[in-house]
């Protein structure tokens, strides 16, 4: 299985980390080798956003990308999936857009959608990006996890092994 290798962080690039920091919050971080205003620009100009938000390796691509990135503005992203006829729409409002440092938006496609906040913090000639996704409740985040479990974990094989050991214990 190549999944293991795929999720090993490449030492040549900056690693992406994800942590569930509380019952209802996830935090994603990554360091970028450039000033905050450029990372902000790539996040707020639809023609640039379009080029990175739907990674090819995930089999999704943009059908349309509308984003009016300013406080009070809204966005609507429509994706097509390689393995499905159906398109997926994601939409919401920008609650706060502070140039070069902070963007807050809602995820309105579901009533249990998270409130997302991305911050760009300059550190020398680099920028530390932190994305916080705050769900309305523990249940909402647990549900997102339960419904979205893909089983493509990089540690899949080891978990399978652990599962087998536990199964044999529990059933004995």
């Amino acid at each position: 299985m190549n999944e293991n290798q795929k999720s090993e962080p490449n030492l040549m690039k900056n690693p992406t980390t994800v942590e569930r920091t509380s019952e209802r919050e996830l935090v994603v971080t990554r360091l970028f080798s450039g000033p905050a205003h450029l990372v902000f620009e790539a996040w707020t100009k639809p023609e640039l956003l379009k080029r990175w938000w739907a990674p090819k390796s995930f089999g999704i691509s943009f059908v349309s990308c509308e984003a009016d990135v300013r406080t009070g503005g809204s966005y609507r992203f429509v994706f097509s999936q390689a393995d499905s006829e159906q398109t997926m729409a994601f939409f919401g409002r920008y609650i706060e857009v502070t140039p070069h440092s902070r963007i807050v938006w809602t995820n309105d496609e579901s009533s249990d959608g998270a409130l997302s906040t991305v911050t760009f913090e300059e550190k020398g000639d680099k920028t530390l990006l932190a994305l916080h996704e705050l769900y309305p409740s523990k249940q909402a985040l647990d549900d997102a996890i339960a419904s979205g479990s893909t089983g493509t974990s990089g540690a899949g094989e080891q978990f399978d092994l652990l599962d087998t050991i536990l199964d044999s214990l529990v059933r004995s």
Partner: protein
Amino acid sequence: MVQCLQARLDASFGALSDATRRGVLEQLGQADASITVLAERFHMTLTGMKKHVGVLEQAGLVTTEKVGRVRTCKLGLRGLQEEAAWIDSYRQLWDARFDDLDKIVEELKREIKNR
């Protein structure tokens, strides 16, 4: 995140290296049980059993819930495994996005230099 998963797996396999703790998992596979019941079943002191349950809990193999004065233990792996798998695929999505974003930032940096 991979290191984090690895740490969780280490904790899980570490927790399984002890016969009493494996026994506790077997027991909980049949029914949830309080720490008191587990301590009696394995002829241990409450403190000793609390320690073992603590190790299993740290590894995510067992979850406990205190209702009144009784702490009930139950198997907890399934939730942990689902969460770890989901978080890992979520990380992979953002990692792929950020790899592309990286390239765009590089591009913008070059454009500025050439201006």
